[in-house]
């Protein structure tokens, strides 16, 4: 057991009295005791000293309470062109009164669905923050999309944060989608305070056969956010799941994303773009588990790092012995704009089947000087030429956002960042 457990501020959270899900909570506490908080020698957190960061930045650690969100706050924060449904959270707590009523699907508090098998997809044994969330979350959300329901409108999770220093927000969402269900989710965070806070989020997604889900995340809540998220999904036969994560700011962000390909002819896609400046630290840990034959996974993460920023990419691909005819592709490319920016990238492929197509590659370099000169000799100013080249690099990830208005919004944010000083 790690020495860093309950003695730490963040570790003391584990005793927070949360109601319901007794069995799952005690299982999570046990998982917490066994794992302890990650220290400098914990392999999975080797490059992301999250425990140290939390101890330094958080004073009195308490659980953040919900607050009132007005319809005006919701409307004024919708990005241009969004015409879907909005589910509002205040410090991680679902706010039904300002959320859309969505016909044909079930949305309620997790506590009202006490037989939900939480922790069966995002297992507390795999990540200690996942365990902390499971042991102590309150105000989680349950979403169930019945079979054959294809949601035409996108669901936007709008997460408002308003807290005093040191508070912890622990959102938890369970999504289940029946056979042939289709849906698109977008996560957006709006931070109303200027003190450091910690978000420890878990999202579990259970798909049926032939379900098709898109999950988009925009991480842009400013330099006060310390965040760990665990998002995990089970992907069944003939189903697809696609994730795009755009990370633009944060103090320290760790995204654990895991796809379990459990049925043949299934497909999992993971795309990510991180544009980092200042001292922002973003760590994407992805995991795809090919358990059956004839499934495909695609992964592309790209990063542009300026100033003293730090990026981490760790991509695990596990191809089990039965998973013949697997296609698995992974790519991570980085551009460093400053001598002080650092990126650690680690592909981790474990392949037990013998008839598979797997490829991976990672590159880290500077902006292409020859391309820059070429553009300049055509009369394009140096700053704009840099912006053009960086945008071209980033655009490959943005192309995977299939929601037009959200893509336009993200494109604008990225262009603004790259056009001026990154």
């Amino acid at each position, binding site marked *: 057991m790690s020495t860093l457990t309950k003695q730490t501020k963040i570790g003391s959270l584990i005793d927070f009295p949360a109601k319901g899900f007794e069995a799952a909570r005690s299982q999570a506490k046990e998982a917490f005791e066994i794992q302890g908080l990650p220290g400098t020698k914990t392999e999975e957190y080797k490059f992301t000293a999250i425990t140290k960061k939390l101890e330094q930045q958080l004073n009195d650690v308490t659980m953040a309470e919900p607050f009132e969100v007005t319809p005006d706050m919701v409307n004024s924060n919708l990005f241009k062109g969004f015409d879907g449904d909005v589910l509002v959270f205040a410090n991680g707590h679902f706010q039904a009164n300002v959320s859309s009523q969505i016909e044909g699907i079930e949305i309620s508090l997790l506590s009202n669905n006490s037989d939900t098998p939480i922790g069966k997809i995002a297992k507390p044994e795999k990540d200690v923050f996942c365990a902390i969330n499971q042991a102590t979350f309150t105000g989680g959300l349950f979403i169930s999309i019945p079979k054959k329901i294809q949601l035409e409108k996108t669901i936007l999770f709008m997460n408002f944060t308003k807290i005093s220093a040191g508070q912890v927000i622990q959102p938890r969402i369970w999504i289940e989608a029946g056979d042939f269900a289709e849906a698109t989710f977008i996560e957006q965070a709006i931070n109303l305070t200027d003190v450091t806070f910690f978000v420890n989020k878990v999202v579990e997604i259970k798909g049926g056969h032939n379900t098709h889900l898109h999950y988009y995340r925009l991480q842009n809540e400013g330099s006060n956010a310390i965040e760990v998220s665990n998002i995990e999904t089970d992907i069944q036969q003939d189903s697809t799941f696609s994730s795009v994560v755009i990370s633009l700011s944060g103090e320290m962000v760790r995204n654990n994303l895991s796809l379990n390909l459990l049925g043949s002819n299934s497909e999992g896609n993971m795309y990510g773009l991180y544009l980092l400046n200042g001292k922002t630290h973003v760590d994407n840990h992805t995991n795809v588990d090919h358990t059956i034959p004839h499934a495909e996974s695609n992964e592309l993460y790209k990063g542009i790092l300026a100033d003293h920023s730090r990026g981490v990419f760790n991509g695990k691909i596990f191809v089990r012995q039965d998973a013949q005819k697997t296609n698995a592709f992974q790519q991570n490319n980085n551009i460093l704009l400053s001598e002080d920016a650092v990126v650690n990238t680690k592909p981790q492929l474990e392949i037990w089947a013998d008839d598979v197509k797997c490829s991976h590659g990672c590159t880290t370099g500077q902006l*292409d000087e*020859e*391309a820059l*000169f*070429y*553009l*300049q*000799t*055509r*009369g*394009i*100013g*140096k700053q*704009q*030429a840099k912006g*053009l*080249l960086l*945008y*071209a*690099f980033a*655009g*490959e990830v943005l192309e995977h956002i299939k929601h037009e208005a959200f893509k336009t919004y993200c494109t604008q944010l990225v262009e603004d960042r790259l056009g001026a000083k990154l």
Partner: protein
Amino acid sequence: MLSIKNLHASIEGTPILRGINLEIKAGEVHAIMGPNGSGKSTLASVLAGREEYEVTDGEVIFNGKDLLEYSPEDRAREGVFLAFQYPVEIPGVSSTNFLRTAVNQVREYRGLDPLDAVKFLTLMKEKMKLVEIDQKLLSRSLNEGFSGGEKKRNEIFQMAMLEPKLSILDETDSGLDIDALKIVSNGVNQLKSKDNATIVVTHYQRLLDYIVPDYVHVLYKGRIVKSGTKELALELEEKGYDWIKEAVDSEATV
């Protein structure tokens, strides 16, 4: 138009250009020839403003302005155009968007209104005919997956769009088959006027059958060692560079 005096340039401390003198007037075509490693491409690069080269002595006056004081983009806006020996592939940047940005930045510098989408496309269609470049090519990423000939044609197409006063063609002929060479040369010739000038940098005389120079200069060891008319190019074609090398080298030992 262009006056180069005693130009010295080096890369990482190694001198490449050792005193170039060259006068070019509007309406003229100058060919710069010479054996490999003589400094031809360096001269082209220094004029365009490539940063790796350090100018250690001399001056370059372009239309009364000290060209060496300008950034690469401002040189382009002042009217200098370099057709690259190896045009750069830039994935993700569409040829059309790139050109529109370039044309409008150059126009802005020259105090002209930007071209709107319609006017830009009209101009593009007109100039495309000059080098017989396919629209499909321009809807792709800049130079990405283009054949050698397509890249060179794209260079001349960009030149046509930007309407430079001084065009420098760096080995534009290398690697081209005769059909492509004719198309490229034809484009260059149509763009020639009494108000602009062209520097053709080449190793081979062949290109000069199609782009006929007013003057031919031979560059060797970073200096112009011989100048003449187009007949000099034919003489070089026939006799090679050795007789010039020998003449220069024996002079140096005296």
